[in-house]
């Protein structure tokens, strides 16, 4: 049982990160290339790594590129532990054939070896931005590092699941940068780290916890309005469902899931109720109360009539002891009232009410949880009861309001007159002490 579960988790990770097999494959190709085609140049042998490191191991070497300080120091030890340790410096810095080399070198082309990944990257939001001259957009080295690149499965790798949020957060936790590039979520990193996924990852070190790449992809990250994006509205359920398979199975049969499948852009997907980055546990009262309002953003009339009932009044005050939307209608598996399988269909109503009211019977469920005193057609009894109470209220206050105003006027007049005729000695009937 246990091992089975473990296998399942690993499979999940593997499914999520199909690109991980690429570095290994590319590495083998690079090795082969090195053996059969030694670095070709202008004839002179390329300098050995030791030669390069004799300068570049000096700490604090740096230069300016695109207005940013770039370190030129290579830590020999970290390089020797990196996935690229067997390669020579000139494999990547291929325009160097002699030392000292030119002051300005061509950018390293990872695509030389990682052609397929590079192609995918070129179509991503980062790749396209780079292509359009935005040098803030993440390149290979921004996520993977440069001289110290480790295999993705190495816990110290910048793209290891437990490390990835910090890597992405270097940019996506910077509101200035987000504003500059019109990224709608300016603090994705902060929100994520406080979310149930972020905590599972950071506090519990869970590899199964969703991290940035689980939802957004990695090399192929697309903006959310791109139909191919993993976080494009209509694709959100399947993205979340990659882990939350049971919920997805419920959701696709729900009235919302069906609407989304039918192409509705208004029907809610996972993130409408759960939010995207700040997903919280659903057991907390704050979430449970917030979600009622969330349902009400579309089901406005239902929220209004719910607030007129005891259930709605109590939840409005911030207490979760009584029925909220999902207690009666369900959540992921929510169905239209007309659907026989709905928890609030005539056939299921008694059992649904019995969740809280164990003695509920057919009589009891004739209660209207959304009774509307303004709807004469649908709720005539409530309508007329409200009308009667309104008339009573108005009648009583009009009569006694007038009564009081007239009385006040007459009494004030009397008191004033008595004062006038008796001087200061006048006393009201009450002042007999």
């Amino acid at each position, binding site marked *: 049982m246990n091992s089975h579960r473990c296998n399942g988790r690993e499979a999940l990770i593997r499914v999520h990160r199909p690109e991980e097999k690429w570095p290994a494959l590319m590495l083998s190709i690079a090795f082969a290339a090195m053996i059969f085609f030694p670095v070709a140049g202008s004839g002179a042998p390329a300098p050995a790594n030791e030669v390069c490191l004799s300068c570049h191991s000096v700490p604090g070497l740096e230069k300016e590129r695109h207005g940013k300080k770039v370190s030129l120091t290579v830590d020999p030890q970290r390089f020797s532990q990196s996935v690229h340790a067997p390669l020579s410096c000139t494999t990547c810095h291929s325009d160097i054939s002699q030392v000292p080399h030119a002051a300005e070198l061509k950018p390293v082309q990872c695509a030389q070896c990682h052609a397929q990944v590079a192609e995918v990257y070129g179509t991503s939001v980062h790749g396209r931005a780079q292509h359009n001259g935005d040098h803030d957009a993440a390149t290979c080295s921004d996520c993977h590092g440069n001289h110290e690149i480790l295999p993705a499965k190495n816990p110290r790798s910048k793209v290891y699941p437990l490390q990835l949020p910090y890597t992405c957060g270097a940019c996506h936790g910077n509101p200035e940068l987000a504003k500059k590039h019109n990224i709608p979520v300016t603090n994705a990193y902060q929100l994520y780290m406080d979310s149930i996924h972020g905590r599972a990852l950071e506090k519990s070190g869970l590899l199964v916890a969703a991290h940035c790449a689980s939802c957004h992809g990695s090399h192929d990250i697309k903006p959310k309005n791109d139909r191919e994006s993993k976080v494009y509205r209509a694709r959100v359920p399947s993205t979340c469902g990659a882990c939350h398979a049971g919920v997805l199975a419920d959701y696709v049969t729900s009235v919302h899931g069906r609407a989304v499948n039918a192409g509705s852009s208004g029907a809610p997907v996972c993130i409408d109720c759960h939010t995207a980055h700040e997903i919280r546990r659903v057991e907390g009262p704050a979430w449970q109360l917030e979600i009622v309002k969330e349902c009400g953003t579309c089901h406005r009339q239902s929220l209004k009539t719910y607030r007129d009932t*005891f259930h709605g009044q109590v939840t409005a*005050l911030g207490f979760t002891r009584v029925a909220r939307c999902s207690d009666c209608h369900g959540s992921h598996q929510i169905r239209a009232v007309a659907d026989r399988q709905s928890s609030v269909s005539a056939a299921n109503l008694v059992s649904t009410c019995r969740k809280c*009211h164990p003695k509920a*019977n057919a*009589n009891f469920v004739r209660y209207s949880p959304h009774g509307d*005193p303004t709807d004469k057609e649908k709720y005539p009894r409530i309508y007329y009861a409200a009308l009667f*109470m309104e008339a009573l209220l108005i009648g009583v206050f009009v009569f006694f309001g007038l009564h009081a105003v007239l009385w*006040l006027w007459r009494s004030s007049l009397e008191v004033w007159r008595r004062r006038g005729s008796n001087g200061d000695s006048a006393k009201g009937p009450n002042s007999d002490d």
Partner: protein
Amino acid sequence: MRNESLDRAPRYFLRFDLFHRLLHGFLMFSFLGLAASGMPLRFNQAPWAAALANAMGGFGAVLFFHKTFALILTLCFLIHVGTLLRRVFIRHDVGVFFGPNSLVPQLNDFFEMLQHFRWFFGWGPRPRFGCFTYWEKFDYWAVFWGMLIIGTSGFMMWFSAFFGSFLPGWLFNIALLIHADEALLAVWFIFTIHFFNSHLRPEKFPIDLVIFTGRVSERELREERPAEYEKRLAEKSLTAIETDPPPLWLKNFGKLVGFCVVACGFVLFGLTLFAFITE
């Protein structure tokens, strides 16, 4: 008149005995408690509602207080009805229903009301009221009806499992609706009309202590309820209700409690009115 009062100490008569004063006290406190614990639910969208509910200690506490005060008020109601029944069936005192000391509306009350309105406009003298005026009778029956309506609907919702077993569920919709609206009517009526009629009108301002001391002075009785005064004078039954002057501590106690309750009432009235207008 001044000489008379200088010559001898003013006489006092008992209007409300200790039992009635205590009953009114319990009624008053349970009513305030019910209003304070119920209005946050009625005006749940108002900014003060959640704060008040939380200040009381949350959902469980609000419900506990509401039900506790409801039980106290129900007890007051039952005790009152019990004493009435005892007067009628054991003492055979049908004066509860008829006669000058009854709270049951009579034709005379209607004429007194018309005459009162004539006086408001300056078209005639003030009516010569008896033991209970028409507005006092309205107060009494409004509370009586209110307790029946609010109490019945409240107990229906409290014991919804029991009532739901034989009553149709839509009655709970009606129950909450009239419970809330009748409560709002009662709260506003008591905190404005009753306060004005009994305490705040110029003749009584700022407070009529009779409900705390139980005593009225001879002058008060003669000026406010001449019909009762003269009837008792003629029947020589004035001495039967004569009592000692209200002790200072009782008057101070009455002022303290009275002003506190009026203040609480005004706060609740202000909060609910504000919420009603802005909802």
